[in-house]
């Protein structure tokens, strides 16, 4: 168990300052990332699973301007929380950091997933994800339920949530890497036409994401 916690902490150090007073903890156990990062990466991972469960088809159309503006609004709320609490104008706490981060991650998937599908797959459905109001509301409701689930259960399942948040971090880096790999290479652009190629690209992406996180974590330990 201790080695799992060490691995989670090591990977989490790649993209997070991991300050103890800014992290959820139970006794001597801390989450592998701070409360805001916990929110962002839990949001990314659970939002991705929710969208995949709600929409089985591979959709590659970028969301409408309305959804982009809502996403930017959510990002702004998190940014304002950072600046205002830094200045001491408002007093933020771990729960506020978690919630603002969670919805930032939750909406980020709506921008990243169609983009990844668009540049990776040879064929995709030319529609937006969650283009029906009902699905959008269900997805949003799931977000609220999952954020509440974390707040009420982290004391009993800290390691489980820690694993999920690190999976979210790997997913985030994976999505960014896949988008960049496929969009910047003409030969790779839209080249996924079979399940085998998809699995290979996912494995390569996950290994690259974990290597990058490990490198960042080493550099951080070396520099600080």
């Amino acid at each position: 168990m201790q080695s799992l916690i060490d691995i989670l902490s090591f990977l989490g150090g790649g993209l997070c300052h991991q300050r103890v007073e800014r992290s959820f903890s139970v006794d001597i156990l801390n989450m592998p990332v701070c409360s805001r990062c916990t929110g962002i990466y839990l949001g990314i991972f659970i939002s991705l699973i929710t969208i995949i469960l709600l929409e089985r088809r591979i959709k590659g159309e970028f969301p409408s301007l309305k959804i982009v503006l809502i996403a930017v609004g959510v990002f702004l709320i998190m940014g304002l929380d950072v600046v205002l609490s830094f200045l001491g104008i408002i007093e933020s706490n771990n729960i506020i950091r978690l919630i603002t981060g969670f919805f930032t991650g939750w909406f980020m998937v709506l921008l990243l997933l169609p983009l990844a599908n668009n540049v990776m797959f040879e064929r995709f459905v030319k529609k937006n994800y969650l283009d029906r109001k009902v699905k959008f509301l269900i997805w949003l409701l799931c977000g609220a339920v999952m954020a509440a689930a974390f707040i009420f259960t982290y004391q009993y399942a800290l390691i489980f949530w820690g694993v999920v948040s690190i999976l979210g971090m790997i997913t985030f880096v994976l999505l960014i890497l896949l988008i960049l790999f496929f969009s910047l290479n003409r030969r790779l652009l839209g080249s996924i036409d079979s399940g085998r190629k998809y699995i290979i690209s996912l494995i390569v992406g996950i290994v690259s994401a974990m290597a990058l996180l490990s490198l960042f974590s080493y550099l951080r330990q070396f520099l600080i």
Partner: protein
Amino acid sequence: MNDKAEEVKAEVVGSEERPGPMAIVALICGILSVICHCVPVAGSFIGFFLSVAAIVLGIIEIKRIGRGEGSVKGKGMAMAGIILGAVGIVFGIIWIVIISVASFAGVFGDWMNVY
């Protein structure tokens, strides 16, 4: 049955339906800049450069699309990149002001310890 037929019709093949790489990179830079700005000082410096990159690449792509050189599909992404880049620039300026004031007042170290 009808729905399935519509979805099959909606499937696309070919790069003309895909956004240009510059639009994609603009959007990615915009998203990363927002995340970076949440880590005061070190992150905000990186975030500032990413924001500038998002805006510059977004504007270049929109101009290319206007001239008919880029894929129209990238317009939304380029716009989103510019909006996120602009949000990042605003936060970047706020951080620069805060760091300058704190350094001038000699409380920068204390402030960072508080954060």
